[in-house]
């Protein structure tokens, strides 16, 4: 039971970390960034390559975060910002997102190559378990749990306690009015992409350690599920993104435990359809949400 609990939580937390980026970006510019799953994939690759060339795990982890943040900001500056300034529609942004997705997935064929990369014994947590009472829990699951909690606290502190976090919430309400306060909305938007991308990169690193491998399409399904998690939780809301991720993690784990593992990947899509029909504003929103 404890083992399954940690399975569900670590899976859910991975979705949550990705989901936050979708949600924060939507909160600030009403854009669903469908390239977001690739920041997770690229973060995972960056971490794995770092580990393989012998960089210590904690630095590799940091590199994953930086790469996720950097690529995310790059996509915003090169892709979305010019569209925003020309007032292009949502369809243009969607096509741009899909193009970036395809570009990154195919870029991996060039470097480091089409084959999936296994971590093998370069994985610092491979096979390690910790014992809690009578239960053995893989160290990585515990690690995902602890790291995610840490990152969430950090995120909350940034968004609610720092100047730039307050600026994020101000820009989420209105770019024009924020700019009257001397805030450069583009800077704040880029920062939001960096935060979201960094969290996705972190999730990628954790996933690579958990699965012990990376491949170029690894961002697609988790990306979609994390998007669903954001919608389920009420897109734009930080707590909603986390709750949505955890919910999907639990539903998937439960489906496996009760022997229905074939529905594991379908559940989130069914959930999405149900939410869109029954409560499009998201499950966890009471009244008006606070966007960021």
């Amino acid at each position, binding site marked *: 039971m404890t083992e399954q609990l940690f399975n569900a939580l670590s899976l859910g937390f991975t979705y949550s970390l990705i989901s936050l980026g979708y949600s924060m970006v939507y909160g600030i510019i009403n854009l669903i960034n469908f390239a977001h799953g690739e920041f997770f994939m690229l973060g995972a690759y960056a971490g794995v390559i770092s580990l393989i060339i012998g960089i210590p795990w904690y630095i590799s982890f940091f590199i994953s975060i930086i790469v996720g943040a950097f690529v995310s900001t790059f996509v915003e500056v090169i892709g979305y910002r010019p569209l925003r300034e020309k007032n292009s529609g949502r369809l243009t942004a969607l096509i741009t997102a899909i193009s970036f997705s395809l570009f990154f997935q195919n870029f991996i064929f060039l470097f480091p190559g089409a084959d999936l990369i296994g971590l093998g014994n370069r994985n610092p947590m491979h096979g390690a378990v910790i014992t809690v009472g009578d239960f053995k829990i893989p160290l990585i699951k515990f690690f995902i749990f602890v790291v995610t909690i840490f990152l969430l606290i950090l995120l909350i502190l940034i968004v609610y306690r720092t*100047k730039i976090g*307050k*600026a994020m*919430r*101000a820009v*989420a*309400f*209105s770019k*024009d*009015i*924020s*700019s*009257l*306060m*001397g*805030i*450069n*909305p583009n800077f704040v938007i880029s920062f939001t992409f960096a935060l979201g991308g960094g969290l996705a990169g972190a999730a990628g690193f954790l996933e690579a350690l958990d699965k012990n491998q990376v491949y170029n399409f690894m961002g697609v399904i988790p990306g979609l599920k994390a998007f669903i998690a954001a919608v389920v939780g009420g897109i734009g809301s930080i707590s909603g993104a986390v709750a949505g991720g955890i919910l999907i993690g639990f539903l998937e784990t439960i489906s496996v435990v009760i022997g229905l593992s074939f529905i594991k990947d379908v559940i989130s899509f069914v959930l999405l359809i149900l939410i869109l029909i029954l409560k499009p504003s998201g499950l966890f929103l009471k009244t*008006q949400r*606070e*966007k960021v």
Partner: protein
Amino acid sequence: MLVIEGLKSYYGKIMALKGISFNVKEGEIISIIGSNGAGKTTTLRVISGLLRDIEGNISFMGKSIVKFKPYEIAKLGIIHVPEGRGVFPNLTVYENLEIGGYTIKDKKRVKSNIEKVYEIFPRLLERRYQKAGTLSGGEQQMLAIGRGLIAEPKILLLDEPSLGLAPIVVKEIFKVIKKINREDKVTILLVEQNAKISMEISERTYVLETGLVVKEGISSQLINDDFVKKAYLGL
């Protein structure tokens, strides 16, 4: 201090300002009066850089600012308090005031400016931990003006501070506007439909009609002008 020359502004093909000129000198309260749709809000949005499809020139302290971005203009000390208040409803009163001091690096100065605003509007102190969206209209207007003051403006652009407020609240707010101008030496450009109260507190007034300045002069004289009396004071 602020000189506007031959300003035209377009919304697509529609010309909302048809070439207006006016100026604001340091220390003055200047009012621009005009009925709904005259172009008052447009004028302020052009000055603060929010509208870019313009012709003509705007200079502030001798320097043209037409190419500046809104956040750069705010940094120069031109602070625009938008129509309908525009407080951040999702932030607390205190956070709104903090955001007002975004351009000030020194945190202590922001804090002491917030204290000063609490002295001007004690109501904001009582409600400092409340989300701004839950304030009454009058309180939101106080917050919007207070937030503008945190940035230590050289000139404050006020867009219809009286809009939708009860007469007593309007009086209270205009008293404060006068006080900010006298005691804190903040120059004020006030845009209003409420012609009477604006002319009472300002030195000079410009009358705006469908994108053109149709009359200008010393407020105390204009208030007795037959045209103004008829068209704007309902006399």
